[in-house]
């Protein structure tokens, strides 16, 4: 193996380690959110507005 080929292989291996490490770190560190995104649809069922004038039975 010539010196040039040796260095080429060394650079390739080094690059692969860096890219792999970055990919692993990206996977391991969670994406952080404060604001969440709107839903496409509600996961439960939908109903019409009830008697809005009736005082709520809920506390608050």
């Amino acid at each position, binding site marked *: 193996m010539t010196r040039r080929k040796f260095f080429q292989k060394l650079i390739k291996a080094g690059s692969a380690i860096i890219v792999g490490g970055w990919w692993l770190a990206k*996977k391991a560190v*969670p*994406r*952080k*959110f*404060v*604001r*969440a*995104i*709107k*839903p496409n649809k*509600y*996961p*439960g*069922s*939908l*109903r*019409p*507005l*009830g008697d*809005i*004038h*009736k*005082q*709520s039975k*809920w*506390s*608050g």
Partner: protein
Amino acid sequence: MTVQCELCPKECLIEPGQSGECRVRINIDGVLRTVVYGYPCSIHIDPIEKKPLFHFLPGTKILSLATVGCNLHCRNCQNWEISQANPEDSRAMNYPPEKLVGLTKHYRCLSLAYTYTDPIIFYEYTYDTAKLAKSANIRNVLVTAGYINEEPWKRLLEYVDAANIDLKGITEDFYRRVCLGTLKPVQDALVLAKASGILVEVTNLIIPTLNDKPEQIRKLTRWVKANLGSDTPLHFSRFFPRYKMRHLPPTSLKALDMAREIAIAEGLNYVYIGNIRSELGQNTYCPGCNSLLIERSGYTILQNRLKEGCCLDCGKEIYGVWK
């Protein structure tokens, strides 16, 4: 990919397809989604005194809404059927912010309350609606446990006019054991809310054997006075056996009266008793001359003797938003 929600102090790490502790903030394909945005499970027009807010537009009606979910899991929760429900098991209405503001105007309500569960967990819906409401001259009211991180809280407060914030207890142990949360973030949220200039009222639900001892009440009222000021209205609220605390009796009137007396002796000017009929504990008295200012019966105002926010007899300015 795992996501982390940084809205509240729980800072849940959420795996794909899973939700945070609040049940409504879900990791869908590596993106955090708020599945209740625009889908309230409850909309009602309530008297503002029911929130309870006694120093904010008394005698007016307030359009009140909630979605399912909560970031706390209080064992005594009075609204657990909606606060501890999963969105997929619930029935909701489709009311995006603009439709909600339209509804508030249609029914001539002066304000909108984000209440019943906790508006923190439907943060984006609350924020967008409050912003829109503010531009339509509608006031915004939060009824919350105040369990939120500083940065989103500051941003939300820009559009809020008043809040009733629960101070459920005064020890970390109480918050850990009863609410599965922590006390410090709530105290920070209270201080920040007050400092932001909005009207703040505080509610403490008194639970027999858990937070009803005189020294606990004294400690709580001293904290309120020292950190929020003696003019901050404090509501002692009656507990009813619900959810995982059905073994405890309802709070007695005697315990509530005792709490009120302690708070007044400690120097708080406006102390109220809620969820129970009480002669003195529902009225507002002038801290200057002790004359009756606002007489209430339940959620009804019997008389309001304030003139431009001041006592009719001695002229003292009374803390509140009166028009």
